[in-house]
């Protein structure tokens, strides 16, 4: 330290000239040897214009894949388009920006007016939904790199059975609710954080995420598209939108001849088999049950909201402000462990304790309201899912279930019917 002090003194003596910068301990030396000071290199990121290119590629890919599916009806073309998307949106763009994650940006923008949402992200959220409303889930078939990746490994798809499908199908709703809750409260983007494939695209991820991705892909050999069917929160929206789509992929190009060849062709259990049996319950009981369910909906909604609101403290626990408040309130008493970095940073910031608590309380309050909403939403989802299992649209032909079908066109190859020549 002595040397250091001496040095300060000497330097101060030698250059009694104020620097143009803020007051510094050691003024900038005046070099006599003709030394030129190097530039601090500050490389820029990806050019902004390229993000508009992404939107352009998205529009082109969506238009092309919709044309391929609706008009061209070729599985091969769908496959190669999806390979392109896997290469571009997956490995080149490294999975970011993606439509699935954009849900969070949109919900954060809706709840926090100071958040600046880039137009490109809005485009990535809106465009696939619009195309789905027009042509079905063509986005899933050929544009989403996640879908392409999983489609690639689905070698031995097994039928899961309606029961497992029904139960696992609830997860995306829950995931969507939580993702919106966490994004809207400005806590975290959980979809991005637990995105299994982005690590593969970047060849860089934590061990846990690689393990998750590996598990998903290996199970994807037998259960086709596990992420899309049982996790994807964006899929929930696409499912709703696709049900009301203007056009949709059909299995047969002309008229179904009931040959049953496509019956087992769908790896996602999304083909509606024509009903041959009569409902054992008579009409009166069915109507009665349906009315009961509809009357139960408010109760279910309330139960869901109430249950979730019980959890709001736990849910809010991951928010940094709540974490800090908890640490300030209950300091770690372990002798070995010094103060956490959070406490250190908090102490050096000079923020009053009351403010930390106040901020945490605000967050908790937001989580309370938020968890009521999410819970109510889940209650409603349960009610509607049960009600949905009571209704059946009668169709004499083999048709894809518009909600679940990914429009991948695998079934198209199995149909022996030739298109009618006009």
């Amino acid at each position: 330290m002595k040397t250091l002090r001496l040095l300060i003194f000497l330097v101060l003596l030698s250059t009694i000239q104020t620097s143009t910068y803020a007051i510094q301990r050691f003024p900038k030396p005046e070099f006599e040897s003709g030394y030129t000071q190097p530039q601090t290199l500050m490389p820029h990121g990806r050019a902004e214009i390229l993000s508009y290119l992404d939107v352009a590629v998205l529009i082109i890919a969506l238009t092309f894949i919709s044309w391929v599916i609706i008009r061209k009806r070729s599985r091969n073309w769908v496959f190669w388009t999806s390979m392109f998307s896997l290469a571009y949106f997956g490995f080149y763009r490294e999975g970011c920006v993606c439509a699935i994650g954009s849900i969070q940006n949109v919900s954060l923008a809706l709840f926090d007016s100071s958040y600046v949402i880039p137009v490109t992200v809005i485009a990535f959220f809106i465009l696939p939904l619009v195309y789905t409303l027009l042509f079905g889930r063509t986005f899933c078939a050929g544009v989403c790199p996640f879908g392409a990746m999983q489609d690639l490994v689905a070698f031995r798809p097994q039928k899961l059975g309606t029961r497992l499908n029904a139960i696992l199908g609830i997860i995306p709703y829950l995931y969507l609710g939580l993702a919106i809750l966490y994004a809207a409260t400005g806590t975290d983007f959980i979809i991005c954080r637990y995105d299994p494939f982005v690590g593969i695209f970047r060849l860089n991820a934590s061990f846990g995420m690689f393990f998750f991705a590996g598990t998903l892909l290996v199970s994807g050999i037998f259960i086709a598209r596990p992420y899309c069917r049982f996790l994807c929160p964006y899929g929930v929206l696409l499912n709703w939108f696709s049900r009301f789509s203007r056009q949709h992929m059909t299995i047969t190009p002309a008229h179904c001849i009931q040959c049953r060849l496509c019956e087992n062709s769908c790896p996602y259990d999304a083909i509606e088999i024509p009903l041959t049996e009569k409902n054992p319950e008579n009409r009166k009981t069915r109507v009665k049950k349906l009315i009961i369910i509809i009357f139960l909906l408010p109760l279910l909604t309330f139960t869901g909201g109430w249950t979730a609101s019980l959890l709001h403290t736990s849910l809010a626990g991951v928010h940094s402000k709540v974490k800090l408040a908890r640490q300030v309130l209950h300091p770690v008493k372990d002798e070995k462990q010094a103060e956490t970095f959070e406490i250190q940073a908090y102490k050096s910031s000079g923020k009053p304790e009351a403010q930390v608590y106040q901020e945490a309380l605000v967050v908790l309050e937001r989580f309370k309201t938020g968890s009521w909403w999410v819970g109510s939403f889940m209650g409603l989802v349960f009610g509607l899912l049960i009600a949905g299992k009571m209704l059946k649209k009668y169709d004499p032909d083999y048709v894809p279930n518009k909600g679940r079908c990914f429009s991948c066109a695998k079934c198209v190859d199995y149909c022996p019917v030739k298109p009618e020549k006009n």
Partner: protein
Amino acid sequence: MEYFKPSAKLVGLLNRIALSAGLFAFVICLLILVNYYQLKRSDPLNSPALKVLVEKMRSNPDDEQVKLEIRELDLLARKAFFTNRWQIRTGGYLLIFSILIIVICLKTIELIKPKIPETPGSVTATFWSERLLNRKWITYTGISLVLVSVVFAYLTHDQLGDQLERVTGKTAGKSSNQVTMDLAGSTDENPAKVTTVESSIKTDSAIVNLDGYPSQQELNSNFPYFRGPFSTGLTFQKNIPTSWDGKSGKNIKWKTAVPLPGYNSPVVWNDKVFLAGANASKKEVVCFDVATGKILWETPIEKIPGSPAQSPKVNAETGLAAPTCATDGRRVYAIFANGDLAALDFTGKVSWSKNLGLPKNHYGHSSSLITYHDLLIVQYDQSGDANVMAFNGKTGQRVWETSRDVKVSWSSPILVNTGKRVELILVAEPNMVAYAPATGKELWRIDCISGEVGPSAAYSDGIAFSVNEYSKLAAVQVGDTPKVLWESDEFMSDIPSPVASANYLFLATSYGTMICYDAKSGNKYWEKDFGTPIFASPMIADGKVFALDKKGIMHIFRIDKTYTSISDPPLGESSVCTPAFADGRIFIRGDKNLYCIGK
């Protein structure tokens, strides 16, 4: 059969390739795992052996042997670290490559093998029974989800919310005590008489952090200084009313008589409006409640050491309390014609006060105050000894002082952000000078003004404007090498300051003419004679210009190339003070009363 033979062979080959690639991938995967585990388990960069050696060296600093050992071990550790990372990376590539081979093989097999649809089994009539089961299972899932949630909530319930609520209640009370105690200590020297202190204000100010300084957003949402958050006449306020009538009371929220006279303008912070007032025997700061107009407190500024016994001789049009107060959300600061400077907290207690020496100013000191971060900045352009200084807002300690070789002036400082830095710009004969507000260091100067300078500078988009009667109007491009972009001597002002929007400069003259220039080129777009003198500085708020004339009529017009009047509402009382805008309201100090106008 002939047709299938080559493809069968090919399929076999592909199958074998896929299998060996799979085995390879498996081995690579294992290797990566081992590698990863090693890196996690014993981070070479934090090797305990190295630490032991370093400890050894510390106790025995001249042991060359230990040093050698450290060097060797350090090199080894770094090598291990980077090799390890290289291995994981290369392993990753190999893994991806082998998986790619597997996928290609299997896809090719899929392609060559003819697709033979499975023969569908017999139709089973289980649809409705399965649906019934599904419904049941969904119900079970729902119920178990609720149960698990309830149990989990019960197990993890730590009443954090309740605890926080309790603690915040307690700490707020505690800090409020501390605040009052601190203030009680200071009141021994300054026995400030606090006329009204509402209990609610006490708790409010307890929550306010008395340290630190406000963010720009806080400043923007309030009206902390003369002429707005930068003192340039620009505000960020919205929903400002454009019609009112002081006589009929239309849109007048309240009107309160101001106890002592003064030509300073109101400043607003959240729920409080501040004014200063003085006569020959008394000086005070008054705080009004924004909602009701009630006077929350009025604190006399007196018994300041060094304060001259006699109040100075001043021009009647300037008065003894011409400078507008400034507030940083923690305290409100006021300065008077005799050089008394005081900081008051929001409960009306004097935090600190001092006298800066009787200013040698023949009309009376009138430069308003401004704050930057935690500094209070005072422009003190007296004749012979002009300077600008900054005080720590909390303690009153002088942080910097820069002497100015200018004549006496009555203008006020403005703060501008040039995109590169924040500059404090002051005008007085003969120049416009910019200082670094944090240090007081002069950044640049340019000669562009003369005479007894009254109007402050305006600023927009890199251009600062100065104007004075019998001088000229000059537009100065700010920066290390300032230059005059354009000049005009057609119209000039001696009291109201100009205001500039992105593209236009609005100049009001004290004889009642409003002129609009192109800010960049100096082209005159229009002039409008209101026929009544204008002493208050025109303000830009809510996308409109507000110019208050001496009769109390507010001329509201568009920021445009042509003069488009929006409305001309009357206050019903004459006024020479610049209006303040905050939270959808306008505050105007008339001759006798303070008005709050709001929808």
